[in-house]
């Protein structure tokens, strides 16, 4: 009954929800490739804007969900930005803070690397939140020819993560009642992990063996193939998204290779 985690599938009717899982996977891979292309701030700003647009408009994710899912990473990115801006060397002094010179190269690089991490986290959130893991598993089997046992193993792993999270919360509460204080030191955390391990292991093994019995009793694994009553397929809009993303990735890497793309401070110089 606790507040659910933001990184969890929620059914919806947005454009992005309706896309098939493989198209969304292609989108995620393409965004990551675009973001990893180069440390150039203006490019990363454009990519971030595109991902934010997808999150809020195409996937209609509530602001609260995006904030809850990414605030910790946003904080980390912000600290990277500050530290790198202040410490990295450069040639062009952009401005001074308290007499300390801030170089255009370091500020550009710091902003680019901070945004890159944030973009990848945010696009993963959009993907996870809008994609039913079961549909993804089925798509992998029916469209990518992945063996169904492997695809189901992947799906069940995703399916039981929230159950294990819930179990850890219960164990933490149960042990807090015993007078165990939540530890912050490394040694304390190791001790804590040791105390959690046994009950968690016992509980997980019991659940896992129950799942195996439940699946086997319903003929899972009896034949090399199985029927999928509802298998997702790529719609026209899915194909369009894939083509656009592919074109963007090719164009981007071609432009990089040919030396057409430069940082803002070089463009303005």
């Amino acid at each position, binding site marked *: *009954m*606790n*507040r659910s985690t933001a990184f969890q*599938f929620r*059914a919806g009717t947005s454009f992005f929800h309706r896309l098939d899982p493989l198209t969304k996977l292609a989108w995620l891979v393409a965004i990551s490739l675009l973001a990893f292309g180069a440390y150039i701030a203006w490019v990363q700003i454009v990519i971030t804007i595109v991902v934010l647009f997808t999150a809020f408009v195409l996937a209609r994710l509530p602001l609260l969900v995006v904030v809850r899912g990414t605030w910790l990473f946003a904080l980390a990115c912000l600290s990277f930005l500050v530290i790198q801006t202040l410490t990295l060397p450069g040639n062009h002094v952009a401005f001074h803070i308290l007499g300390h010179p801030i170089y255009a190269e370091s500020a550009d690089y710091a902003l680019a690397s901070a945004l890159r991490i944030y973009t990848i986290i945010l696009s993963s959130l959009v993907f996870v939140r809008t994609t*039913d*893991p*079961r549909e993804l598993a089925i798509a992998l089997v*029916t469209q990518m020819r992945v063996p169904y046992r492997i695809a189901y193993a992947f799906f*069940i792993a995703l*399916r039981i993560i929230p*159950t294990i999270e819930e179990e850890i919360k*219960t*164990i933490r*509460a*149960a*042990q*807090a*009642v*015993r*007078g*165990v*204080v939540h530890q912050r030191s490394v040694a304390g955390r190791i001790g804590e992990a040791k*105390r959690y391990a*046994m*009950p968690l292991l*016992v*509980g997980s093994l*019991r*659940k896992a063996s*129950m*799942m*195996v*019995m*439940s*699946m*086997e*009793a*319903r*003929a*899972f*694994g*009896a*034949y*090399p*193939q*199985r*029927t*999928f*009553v*509802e*298998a*997702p*397929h790529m719609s026209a809009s899915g194909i369009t998204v894939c083509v656009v993303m592919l074109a963007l990735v090719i164009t981007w890497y071609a432009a990089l290779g040919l030396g057409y793309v430069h940082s803002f401070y070089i463009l303005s110089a």
Partner: protein
Amino acid sequence: MASVAAGHPTDVASLRSAQVTLAPATAAQEAGSGTEARSACDLAVDLRNISYAYEGETEDVLRNVSLTVRDGEFVLILGPSGCGKSTLLQLLNGTIPHTLRGRLEGEASVCGKPILSTKVASFATEVGMVFQDPEAQIINTRVRDEVCFGLENLCRPAAEILERQREALDFVGLDGFGDRSIFDLSGGQKQRVSIAAVLAARPRLLVLDEPTANLDPAGMAEIFAVLERLNREAGTTIVMVEHRVDELADRVSRVLMMDRGSIVFDGTPREAFSQRRVAYSEENAAVPTSAWFPQACEFALALGDRMGRPVDATGMPLNVSEAVAFADRCIGMATATTQPPAPLSTCPSTANDPAFLRVKQLSFGYEKKLPILSDIGFDVGRGEMIALCGRNGSGKTTLARLLMHINAPPRGTIWLEGRDVADLSAREISSEIGYVFQNPDHQFVTDRVWDEIAYGLKVRNYADNAVAERVGEVLDIVDLTRYRDRSPFSLSLGERRRLSVATMLVLEPHLLVLDEPTIGQDHERAQQLMGLMARLRERYRTSILMITHDVRLVAEWADRALVISGGRLPFDGSPEAMFADDALIADAGLLAPPVYEISKALVAKHPGSLLRPTLSLPLLADTIARIGGETA
């Protein structure tokens, strides 16, 4: 969405072969099987001289078990924990010996297929298995996917699968639930999905292992109604292990009782519940079989004892209306009497101490728009035994967690000995309030029983000699002294439960909160735990707050009941008053215990008599015996 059918099943029928002997049959067995001439075609289950030990274990869990179940039977299996009930069920679809390996002797065939040479998957169309925990057995996240799962694995065509899926959901009363997420369903609904998921394959035999253990009474009633229909209308054979016999006794056709791996009784429900016997638990303690009897039968036996007329199997009532008729016969023609009515109260009166725990205007929700609790208020005095009742998910556990500051309560809403709980740490609160979690394993933090009990004292810096003295005393109270050096995880469930109580007890708290003390426990074990609670109350004036939907537990032990419904607290009073309010108990998903229903029906039939609605079985039997004696 497109339909994809892939692959063709190999002919399952090719696996049907002649019965295979798992171990050489003795001459006597051969002679026996020849004379009985059992026909395999109408036998759903045919086990002969089965013994089984889990892999790596020397002791047999099943000992020389022989059992035949004909098509259309509804078999209930009873027995103390560790008697081999669940193991027997796992044999019925080949999980034993194919998934859970071990040493198996004897002959076994189910639905005409020999167990040893038939894979578990090949039983999927004949045997449906439903387990206790819906969370662990449901694989998919959407209702329709779960119901289609088995037939998809069997490579049936998509159109047939969808049709059968609709039928199965319709049968369990979940028509139109196909697109729902599993996470949005109640416990009873989830368990009905589990049943639909096996029904889709139209099994001949349905095997259920305590399917209602995690459910509230309303959820339990849903499941039993579905099973009755399935057995009566569809003719499905059912074999089931279940502790909640009150609502089941008149629905089953046959009862088996097991004891230490053997079947010690096999007969009709009336025969089963007309004679008290003794079985032995895994801890080797004697358990009266009457611990599993329906209350209607217990009532008849008690009344028979008082009237000096033993009840035979033919006259044994199995439900409330039969028990009322039975009592009527005992009362004879007695009508009005001029004697003063017997006192109403059957429970010890509540202590009049000032409250040490006070909850005032407590509202709480993880999200502002979704309050789980609204405006809750009550006091707890010393030595009270309070039941906190309500449907699954009504907010009972959330309330208990707020009392313990596991979740932070709003300031000024919970006061412990005059101090605001919001200002206290979990460690400070746990000196005053002990919380026994549903699963004892979650609470263990050391590797040794003695250390486990000492832990709470040590973190509170008690002197070594004081620790030793108190641990010794508590080990004695919970009867675990002989296991002081064992690992907590090596104890049986009942012992682990007692150990988790002991870890709380050692701090001498004013209040013990028990979270669903009967889930996963048989009636006898729950009774032992409650007996321990009663002793604590007597000795230390400890108050007990039990979160439960076990109405017999409430009726027998609680002297006060709180009902949570829709996040509010619509009732705070005696259990009798709670069960007297039909609208309230329907709203809270409860069912009154049979003894209350029996007494209520008798009062309506005999107005002006000594009879009063009561939760006390001895009191009701005494009163009827008195009236009957007078008329005689």
